[in-house]
């Protein structure tokens, strides 16, 4: 509570109290973090604030908990760490947020200003270290600066293309005192005003013309559709003009896989027919994608027969990898609303038939192996609610989840797409569960990834959240092992675990109900039993080490050069 000197109608706050007040003013209700020497004043103020603190067991966990909250809600989430190692432990989670455009604010305590530059205990230049991995960062030099820096950080994190912001606050700033009018927090608006870019009518008319005149258009939609909350507009657009939709990994969930116009995910581990259809298209409408190399394969040959119409809020993404015939910098929601009335109704019977034929020739069957990751993931997909939130770690299980889980709503897949951080899944699931207490949360993981943030099982038990963890155990770093098999003459080096712990015993030791699925007579009823309660559970599924993610575009090759699927085995 602020010390109130009511006679002057002023209140005295220290920098820590001011920071917490300003965070509260932005609607922050939960903060994940770990205290330490340099952020103790912040924790002291936090203890009296009414904001709920989540004590992560590692700062990287705190960063990913914030990400889980932000990815699942679209709202900025906050994490705390102390100086030195506390701050450096946040770095991976911040970089991850940067790559996937996730709005989080990391607030680090710093040693007192007077000691900066002296190699003091737990001193690190986290401001300098996070320049390349934040959207912007601040080192607070005066207590008054907080009044601007905190609300400004929320604006930066959310405006335009979202991203992480770091605020480094030296301890003496946290303890310095400021006088503010009593009604300061009532007066200052908590609403962030974000700028909306104006659209150019001629550009939008040309864009509509390109779509209307195309014969074989395909939309590739990505994370931009999700972060701009415009999946309903995407649906309208495709319905009106019968445009098929492919989704990037970050776009999964923004278009229903049940829709006939859905083409699946293209790219390195996409479907062959999806990649082929992109090659067939005469117009690619790129909505909120950044032409990542895992999506495009060799960029020169990507969609080689198509004109490209690109809409993205970030100007530096336009023409970065592929030169577009028309590129428009715009907020997708505004742009799609504007363009919808300009789009003609079209059935595209011919193109739709062509697509249906390709789909029929490449049926996406789940192989009939009960304990395979494909079957387990499909079964969990069938048994969970449409709004259940799925997190993954990184590796084979991540790609299988992208391939076999049916994501029907935006913000239901939380995955480390750009940075590919192993260890993301469990803390992100905890964050998602905190921000969505009524939803089912599932984390698919592997035995490689899970060990990288396993300490957060303690937090999961402490909070008793509805998170179900499915671990596919192949005693290896599967995606590495797979690449060594395919591209390094089966020279398996440093990719197999000579020893693996008993994961179910570990989960039990953390107090979490644990199961092994390996010889169950009725998987569906077992999975139902596991999923149908509100408590955490851990499930281990032993799988074959040789199980690969197929098909695959070999690194550096074009998307037309996929290997390892039925087609390749039988026709080439």
């Amino acid at each position: 509570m602020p010390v109130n000197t009511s006679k002057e109608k002023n209140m005295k706050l220290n920098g820590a109290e001011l920071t917490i007040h300003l965070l509260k003013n932005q609607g922050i209700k939960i903060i994940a973090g770990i205290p330490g020497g340099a952020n103790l004043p912040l924790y002291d103020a936090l203890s009296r604030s009414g904001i709920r603190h989540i004590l992560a067991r590692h700062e990287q966990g705190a960063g990913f908990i914030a990400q889980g909250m932000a990815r699942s809600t679209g709202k900025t989430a906050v994490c705390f760490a102390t100086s030195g190692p506390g701050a450096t432990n946040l770095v991976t989670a911040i970089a991850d947020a940067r790559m996937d455009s996730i709005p989080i604010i990391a607030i680090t305590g710093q040693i007192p200003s007077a000691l900066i530059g002296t190699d003091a205990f737990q001193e690190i230049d986290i401001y300098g270290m996070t320049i390349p991995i934040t959207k912007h960062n601040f080192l607070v030099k005066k207590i008054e600066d907080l009044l601007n820096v905190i609300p400004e950080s929320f604006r930066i994190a959310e405006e335009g293309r979202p991203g992480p912001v770091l605020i480094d606050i030296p301890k003496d700033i946290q303890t310095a005192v400021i006088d503010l009018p009593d009604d300061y927090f009532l007066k200052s608006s908590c609403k962030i005003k974000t700028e909306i870019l104006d659209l150019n009518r001629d550009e939008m008319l040309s864009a509509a013309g390109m779509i209307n005149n195309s014969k074989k258009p395909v939309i590739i939609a990505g994370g931009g559709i999700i972060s701009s909350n415009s999946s309903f507009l995407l649906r309208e657009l495709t319905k009106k003009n019968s445009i098929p939709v492919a989704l990037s990994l970050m776009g999964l969930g923004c278009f229903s896989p049940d829709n006939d116009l859905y083409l699946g995910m293209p790219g390195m581990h996409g479907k062959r027919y999806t990649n082929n259809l992109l090659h067939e298209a005469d117009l690619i409408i790129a909505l909120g994608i950044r032409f990542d190399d895992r999506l495009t394969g060799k960029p020169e040959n990507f969609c080689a027969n198509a004109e490209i119409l690109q809409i993205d809020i970030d100007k530096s993404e336009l023409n970065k990898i592929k030169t577009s015939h028309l590129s428009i910098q715009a907020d997708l929601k505004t742009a799609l609303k504007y363009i919808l009335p300009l789009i003609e109704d079209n059935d595209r019977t011919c193109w739709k038939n062509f697509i249906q034929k390709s789909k029929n020739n490449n049926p996406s069957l789940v192989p009939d192996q009960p304990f395979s990751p494909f079957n387990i993931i499909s079964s969990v997909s069938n048994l969970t609610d449409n709004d259940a939130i799925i997190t993954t770690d990184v590796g084979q299980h991540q790609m299988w989840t992208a391939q076999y889980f049916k994501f029907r709503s935006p913000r239901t897949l939380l995955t480390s797409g750009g940075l590919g951080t192993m260890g993301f899944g469990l803390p992100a699931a905890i964050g998602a569960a905190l921000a969505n207490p009524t939803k089912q949360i599932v984390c698919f993981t592997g035995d490689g990834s899970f060990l990288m943030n396993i300490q957060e099982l303690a937090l999961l038990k402490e909070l008793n959240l509805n998170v179900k963890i499915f671990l596919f155990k192949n005693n290896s770093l599967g995606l590495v092992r797979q690449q060594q098999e395919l591209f390094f003459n089966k020279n398996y080096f440093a990719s197999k675990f000579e020893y693996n712990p008993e994961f179910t015993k570990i989960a039990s030791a953390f107090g979490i109900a644990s199961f092994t699925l390996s010889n169950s007579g009725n998987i569906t009823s077992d999975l139902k039993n596991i999923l149908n309660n509100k408590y955490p559970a851990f499930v281990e599924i032993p799988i074959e080490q040789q199980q690969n993610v197929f098909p695959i575009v070999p690194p550096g090759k074009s998307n037309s050069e996929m290997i390892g699927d039925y087609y390749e085995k039988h026709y080439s």
Partner: protein
Amino acid sequence: MKNIILELKVHNHSGVMSHITGLFSRRSFNLEGILCGPLDDAAFSRIYLLVNENNTLCQIKSQLEKLYDVVEITVHENYNTDVFRNIGKLFNNDSEP
């Protein structure tokens, strides 16, 4: 190769230079020269960057525009770049023993 000068108006604080030079190194853009100094009111600085004209120029410009502390960017294609060439002789250090 032709040289281009990028003229920036930026907020004047100690981290700005790191933000700008860091951008060039991590995106592997070439940076041939830097001139920098505070403007009259000290809240802003002027930075002149000497870069090569090549196909990354557009990317450089739009990445610089995204930096929070960069207020204005102007691209000059026909400025005399001698000041950068002569920077080593500014104080006639060569004549000192």
